[in-house]
């Protein structure tokens, strides 16, 4: 496992790797070039928007749905809702991407529905219009990723001592106060853990973006992972691809160290 990583790091300091046999050592030239590449900065910016948007979305939707399916309703509908709500997580990225492409097609069902309800005037090319592509991609990413967080939060919610809620009720706390003063602080360790994990996963997420927008239209949804892929397998610039990959790896490594530190801290308490 170490060898390929080292090789990619090595490639990032060479020119014309893989495709030609006479690759030359260029030092930090690839990095310098990237630093002056506006598309690189766009992809960094997009990656941050995409990652932060997805993770925040996952957290909000996950916690909201976990609260819903944790509420005291009849066990049969509860079991049905639980199963239905976990489904998005079970599909592969290809299925998710295809599904959403069909749904979001300019002549797809979502456009017809929104038009019928009078929310939009004319059909929108959700994945093909630069002004809405990133927002649309975020919706798909949130839909696809919330179940993991929802399940984590649900197990967290179920482990909270019920008498604590009762004590708060007697103390005079209302729903919102209980949520912010009891539930959220009790879930804090889980929120930290899964949010960091989700950041790591989403930061390097490739298939969903590539299969829905392909980084486009233009560079509207170009993220570091699609940028790497484009360098490597569209432009065959493996040195540049390696350089972006190393940068991506650095970011992910920092997040991973944070996550592991958090875990270590917890086990020491």
């Amino acid at each position, binding site marked *: 496992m170490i060898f390929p990583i080292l090789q990619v790091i090595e490639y990032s300091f060479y020119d014309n790797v893989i495709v030609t046999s006479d690759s030359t050592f260029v030092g930090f030239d690839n990095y310098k070039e990237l630093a002056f590449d506006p598309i690189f900065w766009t992809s960094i910016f997009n990656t941050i928007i995409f990652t932060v948007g997805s993770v925040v979305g996952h957290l909000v939707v996950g916690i909201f749905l976990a609260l819903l399916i944790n509420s005291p309703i009849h066990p049969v509908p509860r079991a049905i809702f639980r199963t239905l709500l976990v489904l998005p997580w079970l599909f592969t990225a290809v299925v998710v991407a295809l599904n959403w492409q069909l749904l979001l097609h300019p002549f797809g069902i979502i456009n017809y529905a929104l038009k019928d309800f009078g929310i939009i005037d004319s059909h929108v090319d959700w994945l093909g219009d630069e002004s809405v592509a990133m927002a649309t991609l975020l919706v798909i990413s949130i839909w696809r990723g919330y179940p993991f967080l929802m399940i984590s939060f649900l197990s967290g919610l179920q482990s909270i001592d019920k008498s604590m809620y009762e004590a708060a009720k*007697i103390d*005079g706390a209302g729903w919102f106060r209980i949520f912010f003063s009891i539930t959220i602080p009790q879930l804090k360790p889980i929120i930290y853990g899964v949010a960091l994990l989700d950041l790591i996963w989403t930061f390097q997420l490739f298939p969903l973006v590539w299969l829905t927008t392909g980084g486009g239209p233009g560079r509207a949804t170009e993220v570091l992972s699609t940028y790497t892929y484009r360098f490597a397998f569209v432009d065959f610039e493996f040195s540049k691809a390696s350089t972006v990959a190393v940068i991506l790896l650095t970011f992910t490594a920092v997040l991973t160290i944070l996550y592991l530190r958090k875990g270590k801290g917890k086990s020491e308490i």
Partner: protein
Amino acid sequence: MSGIALSNLKKSYGDTDILHGIDLEIKNGEFAVFVGPSGCGKSTTLRMIAGLETVTSGEIFIGDQLVNDVQPKNRGIAMVFQSYALYPHMSVYDNMAFSLKLRKMPPGEVQKRVRSAADTLELTKMLDRKPSALSGGQRQRVAMGRAIVRDPEVFLFDEPLSNLDATLRTQMRAEIKELHQRLKSTIVYVTHDQVEAMTLADRIVIMRGGKIEQSGTPEDVFHNPASMFVASFMGSPPMNLAESTVYDNGAEKGVNINGTVSIISSEDSPLSSKAGDRVVFGIRPEDIVPDFESDINNKNWTASVKVDLIELLGSTKLFHFHIGTNKFIGKAGGRSNIEPGQVISVVMDMRHARYFDPETELIIR
């Protein structure tokens, strides 16, 4: 301060009836202890008073107010939970101040109340700590402090000592009793431990199967149990109970246990049943003592028995024996020289004997 009145209080979950109509009046300032085996409905009753369970039918009054549909926070109650239910992410101070802050009390007043409660409970040095840094007894005190600061009309305790070890339990028991004497507030306390009930209560409410079996002072329920259940539930070891037959030879009336031992009843606890009637004869272990330790000089109350087993409790010795197939326990002094297998003469103090109807299991008056 307020008293509590429960009127025909019922609780059902679906088709399962948990409480079958509870009628009870707890006076202002009274320390009432609900005691009974698991599933008898004591905690459910307490939770209904707290407003944590809905009322299926019947009425709950706290003071003069009907509180059936009143929110828990507006009932003027404070509750101490079995698990303490402290907020783990808040300091001891914040745990105690939480309800006061929610009431939008001025910060100065909040601080005054918390400090005063902390002083009372010896928690002043721990106010900045989190509950996880406290021992079981200290957590218990914080839970009590959280209740005290609210200055409630009624304190509700749900098995508050059951998570503590024996020594700490005895200590906390005394502290709760002291607290009641100082605050003079109405307390409803639930426990399955009859020793706790006896030591704490002004009034014990013994529950069984969703009904009140007996309610009265600790002395009353101990010495005058209304039923065989109460007789066997209160006291450790419980009252000896033996099926027996009433005999009456004109001059003397008494019970014949198992056709082997006949004991004449006392005028202090007269036997109202007729000759030949079946009754359950009940006598507390402390009322059966070895003849050589007794100052009762009544040959009609003695029996010769063979000791099966000895249990030394320190200051006393319990000795087990049989009369026919009925098992009995008596109490001797801790230094009594009795051994298993020994045949001794015991005196049964019939002034304190009780008789129960074997059908209804209720006391025969």
